[in-house]
């Protein structure tokens, strides 16, 4: 019988790093990626037929080229399945995958699993955030990287975080600078945090490059500024904004929103490094520390798996130090951009899938059970199954959305016909 592989889910920086580390140690790897190409969100490559590359920092280009070269060098030990979506683990320990090309679900029993499915963006909802024309900044950036083309027409970028100026600069370099970047936080009010950020040379030189681009393209970057609502307006959107006490209405074609990231954990199997089949999380999916740290974290998880399987490994103290540095940087950034949560207007949509409003969320009993929130509130019951609205609900309720126990599969909606065609690698 063929030796069972180590499963790695997600071929972004953490997954690629984990897969390379394990394959270099001589063990077989099954590498699963939901897209047709590796890269994840951060290292998303241009689509096959497109040669117009989006500008990105040299460090990122180097890092990714290095990872790809390592994967290439041990390709013989890595079984890659692209356009394949991880569906979770069933009650009998089967890891389930939806092969979208073959329209068939398959089950495997790996020796160990490293799940590196990245982060999801956080959104602070406002009336109209659900409209066509409103996109997450990360989603827009992924599209920009793939197509090399910015969206047409006026763009407004709003929310909070380091992604906002980065995306705005990339849009500007691609030929369509946004009309403005609105940052919710007021970093100048947190000088200590800013001072700590200034000590991080890599990210800060990147930030300086973005700032230069924004200045050259005359893109205003306003702090303490938020979007209060959006309404349809012909082909575009009428966006109400507030800067300090000033209210204003902007007419744009695209509104790109983003309020930070958090690990993509909803429904993901719980980490259990000591189980018979060890499960580890890696990268932004474990702790949102960014692309550079994800590479270190992928190697850390792989090393831990190798040690667990009895392979001699070197502990990488430099990796641990790198993760600690990244954590310090993220903490300072969070502190610098901190802003108090705001209670949304009652009509604000919280669950887009089922069309449920904040008023309906607020009407639930404060001690409502998971069942009540889901079935009676219909929150987390739609197609995203709470994977997207869950963090938003948790932030608004001040407590995490109670998770289904055991974690439920499928993690993503799956074709009835594909699941009916389930194949397993067992003799059942």
């Amino acid at each position: 019988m063929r030796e069972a592989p180590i499963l790695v889910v997600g071929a972004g920086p953490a997954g690629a790093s984990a897969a390379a580390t394990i394959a270099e140690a001589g063990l077989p790897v099954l590498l699963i990626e939901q897209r047709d190409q590796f890269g994840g969100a951060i290292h998303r490559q241009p689509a096959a037929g497109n040669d117009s590359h989006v500008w990105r920092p040299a460090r990122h280009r180097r890092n990714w080229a290095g990872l790809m070269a390592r994967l290439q060098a041990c390709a013989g030990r890595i079984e890659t399945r692209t356009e394949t979506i991880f569906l979770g683990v069933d009650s009998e320990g089967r890891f389930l995958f939806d092969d979208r090309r073959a329209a068939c679900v398959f089950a495997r029993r790996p020796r160990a699993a490293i799940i590196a499915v990245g982060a999801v963006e956080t959104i602070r909802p406002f009336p109209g955030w659900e409209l066509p024309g409103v996109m997450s900044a990360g989603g827009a950036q992924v599209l920009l990287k793939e197509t090399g083309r910015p969206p047409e027409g006026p763009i407004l970028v709003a929310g909070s975080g380091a992604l906002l100026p980065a995306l705005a600069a990339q849009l500007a370099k691609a030929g369509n600078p946004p009309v403005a970047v609105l940052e919710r936080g007021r970093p100048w009010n947190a000088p200590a945090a800013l001072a700590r950020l200034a000590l991080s040379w890599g990210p800060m030189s990147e930030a300086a490059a973005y700032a230069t681009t924004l200045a050259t393209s005359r893109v205003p970057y306003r702090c303490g500024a938020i979007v209060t609502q959006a309404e349809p307006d012909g082909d575009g959107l009428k966006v109400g904004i507030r800067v300090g006490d000033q209210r204003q209405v902007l007419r744009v074609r695209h509104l790109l929103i983003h309020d930070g990231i958090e690990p993509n954990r909803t429904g993901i199997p719980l980490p259990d490094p000591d189980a018979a089949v060890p499960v580890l999380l890696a990268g932004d999916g474990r702790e949102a520390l960014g692309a550079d740290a994800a590479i270190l974290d992928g190697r850390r998880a792989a090393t831990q798996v190798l040690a667990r399987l009895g392979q001699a490994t070197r502990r990488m103290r430099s990796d641990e130090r790198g993760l600690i540095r990244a954590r310090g940087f993220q903490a300072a950034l969070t502190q610098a951009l901190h802003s108090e949560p705001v209670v949304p207007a009652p009509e604000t949509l919280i669950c887009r899938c089922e069309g449920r409003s904040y008023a309906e969320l607020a009407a639930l009993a404060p001690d409502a059970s998971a069942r009540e929130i889901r079935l009676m509130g219909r929150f987390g019951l739609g197609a995203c199954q709470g994977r997207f609205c869950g963090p938003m609900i948790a932030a608004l309720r001040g407590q995490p959305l109670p998770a289904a126990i055991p974690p439920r599969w499928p993690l993503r909606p799956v074709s009835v016909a594909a699941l009916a065609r389930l194949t397993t690698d067992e003799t059942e």
Partner: protein
Amino acid sequence: MKPTRFGPSLYGTNRFCMASSSPLHVAVIGTGIVGASAAHFLAAAGARVTLLDASGPAAGATGASDGAVSVASKRPGPMMDLARHARAFYVRHERDGLFRGLFHRRSTFLVARTAIEADLVTRHGADLAAAGERVVEVDRATLLARIPGLGDSVCAALEIPDDGHALGYEITQRLLATSRVDIRRNAPVSEIVMRAGRACGVLIRDEFLPADAVLVAAGIGSAPLLGLGEILIPRKGQMAVTDRATTAGPAIDGHLMAASYLAAKRGIVRDNSHIGLVIDPLMTGQFLIGGSREDHRSDHSTDAVTIAAILREALDLYPPLAARRVLRSFAGVRSASRDGLPIVGPHPHRPGVVIATGFEGDGICLGPFMGASAARLLLGERPEADLSSLSPQRLVRAEVHA
């Protein structure tokens, strides 16, 4: 007149006898559809009710089931008769407003895909007709006009036009929202406390909650509280829910019930790998597809092999499901009694305790009526239907003979 601890005698052997004129206080254990209904009708009659649940409303089988208010699926005998009462109860309360908008009449189609299944469907139809139910024979052309896209293998079908649909958690929520009852979530009851030969309250962790009477309607959690031994068998059912096929109400004009489901309900097959297939078109335009019948399984996990088997059956019966996605899989745990009949009535040797459990897969259909019946028992009134076949007394007799 408000019931007090004096007056009404508990139907059957139990009797309230404490001298006081304050309203009767009932501790109802279990906030599923049965407990919620009992609480609602007790409160409506003036009793004070504390509803206790280890988790919260509809946390058990009530929130993990299909929405069939179906006489068509019942075993011939008392269950078929009681289901007719229970369905009429829904109809009545849909009209009087209590269940308005939550109960919908819809047909059940009993469908056969082989000659043996066709025989079974015919036999079951005859039993339904004998119980007074309207049964309509449907030829394939008519059936296809009603349910476009139905699989080629379907060779015979009966329509039961008077069945209905309601979601257990919605009914539970309505019953609770329309009554003044005290709901305590995260309140697991560990013991029913007896004093001077009758129930005087319950223990919730270390807390004693005094009560004049106790209703045990805690599904599979009932058995440990009753001291009657292993009277309930957990029977897990795995199910899948799809995305919307339409946004304008149910996607198909009736509940599809395969003969394989009847075979399980009539006790013809008893096999943990057997799929009793039902395709339940929900009001949201989604489909709920079930299910397995796994005895002695009380966990809520699902496995891909079983779910895939359910979906293969479902695709054969209704191929348009190929255009749908599964949003989630889940499992409910039915509480089955040893003889397959629910357990409803006064506790055989604990005065002041009434039991309402063991509804297996029929809790949504029977629940509101049985809860109301339990309320009547607690108030010392006679239930609207003869529940003698469900009496917990039979469990004691069985023990003696065993």
